[in-house]
Each structure stands twice: as C-alpha cells, then as structure tokens.
C-alpha cells in the first residue's frame, strides 16, 4: 500500500529523513514512533506530497505521491486540525465530500452518518470558530473517513481529545479493520499505539531503527515504553 524507497529529505544542511526504506502492506495498522524531531512529521508530509523528498521515491498503491491520483482514497488528519472559522462543521465536510467526488444526496447521507459516528450531530451547523479543540479534531476525523478511504494517515489523531474521544477514535479505527483499511499512525501515545496497531517503526535522527510487529518487538516482561526508551537510547 505504501512504499518508501531510499527516501532522503534535507532542509539545508539538516537531514530530517536519512535514507529510509519501508513498506506498509494493505490492511496493516502501522505506527511510526519516535521522539520530537525524529522526522516522523516530515515522513507524513512527504506521503501527502506537501513536501518533496530530496531523493528517493514514495508510492501509494503503486502511484507516485506527486500524482494526485495517489490521494484518491486517502484520508488525512493533521495533529492540530484546523477548520476555516467561517465554515460550519457541516459545510467543511460538504466541501471535503465535493473534492472527492461525492455530491447530492450521497454526500449529505455520508456527512450525516459520519457526524453521528464522531458524536458531532446537533453541533454541525455552528461555525467552527465556536468549536473546542476536541470538536475540531472530531470533525477532522469525520472528514478523514469521508468516501470510505483505503488509507488513513493520522498525525497524532487523539491530540486534544478527552478520554471518551480517545476511546471513540479507537473504536472507529477498530471498526475499519474488517474493511481492509490501512492505517498509518503517527503518535506519541504509546498506550494507544499498543492497543490499535499491529506493526510499528521507531525513528530517531531521521533513521528507522526498527520495523516489526509489536508482538515480536516487545518481550513478555516489557512494555512498549521500555522498548521505546531502549531503542532511542541505543540509537543515540
């Protein structure tokens, strides 16, 4: 589903991503972990073609990310999700729906279904300026799920959410598991990663230190936090 081949990204003299090669299969729930400044967000931005790699190639479903076709069935949720303040949650979702080709009754039904799913029904007509951080994140999640995406790229999806919101997100992600959706999760919340994902990669200083299934990385007497600290310290 996602293939990063020898990807290097430099910002001036700083190498943010240092020759990473990684493959994420269809239906995989994958987490990218690493300390601040490890290069995780740079990878996410390259996946969406927000920034171009200095060298190497990135493919989604065999299509280079520079081709908008690669984003046809991709849902993206940013860490601090922003919604133009003059738009209501409903208008925002209608706009997203239109851009992915949903129109008319289909779009309205899909928007209503997702508003229900993210518990924002009843507040959708309010201007987003009146929304809390968590509410914006919920609307953002609904936008991400529009059009039944095949790949979800989630950059710290539970930031700003209360415990109920966090549980809701986890439930939604679990419900997608049977539909063959691939999830690329960039998160600091190790407990959430442990509950949600199958595989993970740990990044530090732009390099992938390890990529494997969570079960094979964590020993019986360890937690993900122990493993994370061990790898990051070893990586230094």
């Amino acid at each position: 589903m996602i293939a990063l081949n020898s990807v290097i990204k430099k910002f001036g003299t700083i190498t943010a991503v240092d020759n990473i090669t990684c493959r994420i299969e269809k239906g995989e729930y994958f987490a990218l972990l690493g300390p601040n400044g490890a290069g995780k967000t740079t990878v996410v931005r390259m996946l969406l073609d927000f920034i171009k790699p200095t060298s190497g190639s990135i493919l989604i479903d065999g299509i280079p990310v520079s081709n908008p076709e690669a984003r046809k069935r991709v849902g993206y949720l940013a860490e601090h999700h922003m919604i133009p303040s003059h738009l209501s949650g409903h208008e925002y979702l209608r706009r997203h729906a239109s851009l992915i080709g949903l129109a008319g009754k289909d779009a309205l039904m899909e928007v209503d279904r997702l508003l229900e799913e993210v518990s924002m029904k009843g507040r959708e007509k309010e201007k987003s300026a009146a929304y809390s951080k968590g509410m914006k994140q919920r609307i953002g999640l609904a936008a991400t799920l529009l059009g039944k995406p095949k790949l979800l790229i989630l950059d710290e999806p539970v930031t700003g959410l209360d415990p109920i919101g966090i549980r809701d997100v986890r439930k939604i992600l679990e419900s997608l598991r049977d539909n063959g959706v691939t999830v690329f999760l960039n998160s600091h919340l190790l407990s959430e990663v442990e509950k949600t994902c199958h595989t993970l990669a740990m990044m530090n200083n732009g390099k992938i230190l390890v990529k494997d299934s969570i079960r094979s990385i964590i020993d019986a007497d360890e937690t993900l936090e122990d493993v994370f600290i061990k790898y990051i310290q070893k990586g230094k």
Partner: protein
Amino acid sequence: MNNFLKITGYTIRDQMRHKSFYVLLGLSILFVLMIRGCYSGQYAVNGKQLNNITVAWHVSKIVFQVIASGMSLIVILLSMKIFSRDHEDGSLVLFLSRPLFRRQYILGRIAGTWFLCLAFMFILHATIFLTVWVKTGAAIPGYLTASLVCSINLLFIAVSVSFLSLYLPDFISAVFTVGILFVGYISDGGHQILNSEILKTAVSSAAASPPALWRILYPKVYMVQAYADSIIGQSSFNNMGPLHPILNVSFFIILITTLMLFVFNKKEI
C-alpha cells in the same frame, strides 16, 4: 465538476464572507449614490446652459476611471491574503490533501477572486450606465465593453499580488504592486499628456520623443484604462510602442501565472 471550478466557487463564497468585502461594497454603493446627484443638476458656463447629455457623458467618463482605479485597490486587498489566510486557517491542507493538482488550487483561487472583482466592477459601471440612461435618456455606447476591457487589469493585479505574496509579507506585496501600478501611471500618463492634441496645439514645438524600451515593455495597466476610455469616447487611441496594451498585460499575466505555478509546485506546505 472540475476541481478548478469547485475551488473558484469556494473562493467567491469565502471572499464574500469576509467583513472587509462588505465594507468595500458599502463604500462603493455610497460612492455611486453620491455620483447620482451629478446627473440631475443644471450646469452653466459663462452664463450658457450646458447640455445635460454632454455633462453626463463627461462625468460618466471620469467616474468610469475612478471605479476602475478603486477596483484595482480592492483587488489588491482581496488577493494579498489568499495564500497566507489559507495557510493559517487550514484551507490549504483541506484542498491539497485531496486528489487535486496544485495548479487547480492556484488557478481556482485567482479565478474566483478575479471573477468576484470583475462582477463587482461591472455592476458599479452598469449602475452608472443605467443612471445616465434613466436621467438623460441617452445610453453611452461602449461603456460596458470598456468595463470588460478594464477587467484584464484586475486579473493582472490579482496575479501579481498573489505571486509576490509567495515571497513577501502580504502588506509588502500589496505595496510593491501599488508601486508597479504607480510607476506605470506616471510613465504612461505622461506619455499620453505629451501626445495629447491639446498640448500639441498649445505648444507647437512639443514633439514627444519616442519612449524608451523599458516603457514599452513595462506592464501597461494605465494604457489599458486609456484604451477603455477611448472606447467610451469613440476617439483615437494613442498607443505607446508596437504592442497593444491588452496584449502587453496578457503577456504579463501568462508570464507571472506560469512563474507562480512553477514556484508553488515546489513550495513546502
């Protein structure tokens, strides 16, 4: 529907939701209402009563230029924040995380802003046209065509400000564009005055020298307005250099748009 058209539509709706748009709209309506009175008065020069139609025609020509110049400022204000606002409020991520080309986003944003200003200017010009018609019973030929001719200037300004705002702070890019227009107005306006029949008659020795190359190549925003004026006045148009000002401005629009697409395609979001 094509993504370009969708973004054009969103842009028109987004721009119309900003308070500044309604302030500008209110000021424009106020201006047109004030002008209305000019068509009702009785004017006399040296005790001789002037023909109402002649007065209306001259006033309308001046108002035409005032509206066209005012719209240049409005389009600067509306264009200068297109990209920075989108960046700040998440619209950029909204659009570019979806399957569309960056060029569709850029062209849609510019086209939306341009279309809105074009319609705005056309409505103001049409209001003057109709006012003259109602008050004097005479229609000014070419008035609305001239308005459409002037709209090419609005596109040039929208493209220039947007392009500069990719490099410079919004306000500086606006001031820079005003500077480009100002130099053109002084340079080309001076040329028009030197070549005017009145000056040639008054000073028989006033033979204008041929313009320097940079003045021929410079964006001819003022000359487009002068050309529009000649359409209203059905007078001859004194062109500067071999290239018609519409072609000159069109060339700059294409050049700057191409540069903007190239730069934005490489821009990091």
